[in-house]
């Protein structure tokens, strides 16, 4: 399990349930590495500001993370973390490698609107 304060997605079933129960979802799929940690930190801070979005993480090396690794939107990705934004269960945006809080905020505002 990743050492973050975010909701942890541990299985394919939990991933499906999260998407079913929440309209707007952001999942960061990574490891406890230098490119991933800043993204988790930004998400932890944004969680308090964006009440309309569910923020979660998923361990990249867990077999069930194939639900993210194998997404067509992530086909060209070669840098951790893979971050996927879902609206009503559909992928609306995906990014590869480190992103700043500013870049994440821009994506959240564009696709989910501000809370």
């Amino acid at each position, binding site marked *: 399990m990743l050492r973050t304060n975010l909701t942890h997605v541990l299985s394919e079933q939990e991933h499906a349930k999260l998407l079913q129960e929440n309209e707007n979802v952001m999942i960061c799929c990574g*490891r*406890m*590495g*230098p*490119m*991933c*940690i*800043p993204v988790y*930190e*930004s998400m932890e*801070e944004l969680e308090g500001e964006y009440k309309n979005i569910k923020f979660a993480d998923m361990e990249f090396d867990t077999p069930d993370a194939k639900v993210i690794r194998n997404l067509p939107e992530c*086909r*060209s*990705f*070669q*840098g*951790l973390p893979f971050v996927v934004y879902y609206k009503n269960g559909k992928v609306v945006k995906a*990014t*590869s*490698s*480190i992103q*700043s*809080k*500013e870049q994440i905020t821009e994506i959240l505002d564009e696709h989910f609107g501000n809370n």
Partner: protein
Amino acid sequence: MQNHYDVIVIGGGAAGLTAGIYLSRAKVNTLILNEGAVGGQMVLTHEIANYPGIESISGYELARNMKSQAQKFGCTIKSNLKITELDLNSETKKVTVNNKDVYTAHAVIIATGGKSRTIGAPGEDEFKGKGISYCATCDGDFFQDKEIIVVGGGNSALEEAVSLTKYASKVTIVHQFDHFQAFEHYVEEAKKNPKINFIMESKIIEFTGDEKLTGVKIQHQQTKEITAMDIDGVFIFIGYVPNTEKLEGIVELNDWKEILVDKNLATNIPGVFAAGDSIAKRYRQVTTAVADGTIAALSAAEFVNNIKKELLLAQAN
């Protein structure tokens, strides 16, 4: 919300957090303002094995420990914000952040650190995370049995080139000079690795691809000849640049945009000190940043105490 502090530390890496620990423990009311994630370049280090007293620790864990230690002593830390305005020349220093909050203090310690230098060639932004990486331990395994380039000639470039041969079938080191800056043993290790070859005196001038990176254009620095090369990935380790853009014209910098300080780590502005990777110095290590943070904190504490004494004397008279 409290907006006035004794000292504001700008930057939450090893130097800034150390300053926060020392100042807060000395009951100096301190705020750390940090633009990125707390920990700075330290977080980018997978394993730190030469921090005295700790045999092995990840950069992330050391940063987390320092942060929690500073907070336990009462230091306020605000991270992931953007500093929009700096007024350091007045007696009361003023720092404005992106949500328009203004923080004031008697003294400021600049510990803004550095960031990875980028090549700046067309396609670099587009293919970041899609073939271009700045972290071998993070992304190396995406290049299993692939052909990759490592750009750079310093210790990091040579060391990471060797470590990437665990995954890649072939590693080509591209370096702009005819010699390496890395320590000899790193160079030797790379030279004796059969998977590594070298392209010297050359620079990447363009990254090419479609959905992901598929090639680069390399220019020889002497002949100016341009060669196209098919490649699966490029890892860039060409050093760091100090985060001092916002300080230009405010604090005295040298030609490399590093902050000039005296032995007490005071800058040219009274009450403004600097520490860590953003100052002019030769060696940039977690331990040297920690030492800088300590010196800057003690200097700033002395400066603040003198101001407070003067204020008390003025009130008494």
